[in-house]
């Protein structure tokens, strides 16, 4: 198991008890996500579809790499890694 940090974006902090990051123990990205959505169940509904698929407007980056171009949720993590949850945001004109 590795100790990694999961960075929560502002729009989702209302579902993580206002925390901006959470330390979790995991060996893969998928395990880390499971740990964080178990600790904060409201996050699950916003990050995953009912079928358990990561929503298409949410990307996961391990350090600076998009996990879609690594081994997706099976991507292994190591101590000190940061997993970024990056949802799309649209504001700007109004």
């Amino acid at each position, binding site marked *: 198991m590795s100790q990694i940090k999961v960075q929560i974006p502002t729009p989702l902090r209302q579902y993580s008890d206002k925390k901006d990051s959470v330390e979790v123990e995991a060996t893969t990205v998928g395990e880390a996500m499971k740990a964080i959505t178990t600790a904060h169940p409201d996050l699950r509904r916003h990050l995953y579809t009912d079928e358990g698929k990561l929503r298409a407007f949410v990307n996961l980056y391990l350090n600076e790499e998009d996990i879609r171009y690594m081994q997706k949720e099976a991507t292994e993590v190591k101590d000190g890694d940061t997993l970024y949850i990056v949802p799309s945001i*649209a*504001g700007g004109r*109004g």
Partner: protein
Amino acid sequence: MTTATSASGSAATATLNNEEVLRYSRHLIMPEVGMEGQLKLKAAKVLCIGAGGLGSPLALYLAAAGVGTLGMVDFDVVDYSNLQRQILHHTPDVGRKKLDSAGDKLLAMNPFLHLKKYDTMLTSANALDLFKEYDIVADGTDNFATRYLVNDACVLSGKPNVYASIFRFEGQASVFGTKDGPCYRCLYPEPPPPGLVPSCAEGGVLGILPGLLGVIQATEVIKLILNGETKDSLIGRLLLVDAFAMKFRELKLRKNSECPVCGTHPTVTGLIDYNEFCGIRGEEKPMSALVGGMPEMEVTELKRRVDAKEDLFVLDVREPHEYQICNLHGHLIPLGEIEKRAGELDPAREMVVHCKAGVRSAKAIAALQQLGFTGKLHNLKGGIMAWADQVDPTMPKY
């Protein structure tokens, strides 16, 4: 390299008069710009979508820097609540067309600017024709439908899309739609369902944040004009800005070979219905779809019942900081906590639920119904803002 070529192509014929030489002298004496660069700026045509939070600093700096032709697309009117961040617009401009207000400031700042105003909503019907006239498009819009429209129109017309978006105190910036770089759809193939990601109007925004991000956009536009699509551009990089932590993080973006618009076998070869793509059918649909079939109460009816001291529980589902601005002495449970704290409520009691404008309260009612509440639940139509308009004009609006 469309940008650099077309810009430098016409740059050969542009010249600067003595006034312009003096105006741009701090550019002219730095080797990275110089006369050649300044002439490229003068020949460049940039289309700015939106004259609001991002569009303000973006257009001001592009005009100041000597970008020759600036197009601006906006159909909105300046609102009092815009002034906290939309620095193109001043207090006397409230109620004016944003384009007229913007035009005055930009031309006062730089009379050499050739400004084209498009008082229209950007749509699938006009986007490609509009983009045709320009070298670079800068996206300063505020909704997902227009974001995808700008992206697809940029890819289809081969124009770089200098992108930024903001939420509260966080921003994202990149350059999409260049020849070999990724597009917005490579990053996010699909938009979130309506209502899942709050807008600036719902979530708030730190006033300086569009300033920071709009200036980053302006910088990327200027670099594309001066240097073309080089590795120093934000192409293939997503810059994340957190203003409170003052942290700038960078993520790698890749061109997705399976991207429906810029991939090797594109399925989107023309502009589509972006409202439909984003799950919106008609302007007010997200709210009315949600409210459909839900009993609504007019604010005047609530006032009558409160005055008559009828038994009616008022539930406020806004955030505590909104309650501090104004309230109806209702019981406060923010929407995000409604399921957790439903035990504080009597499920059999008649209740009127309100928020700022009526969307969150409709969601709260749906959640309470799911939990098996049997008492009649009314959604306060137009929220506390309607109360301020129709019942209590002394109440502050926000």
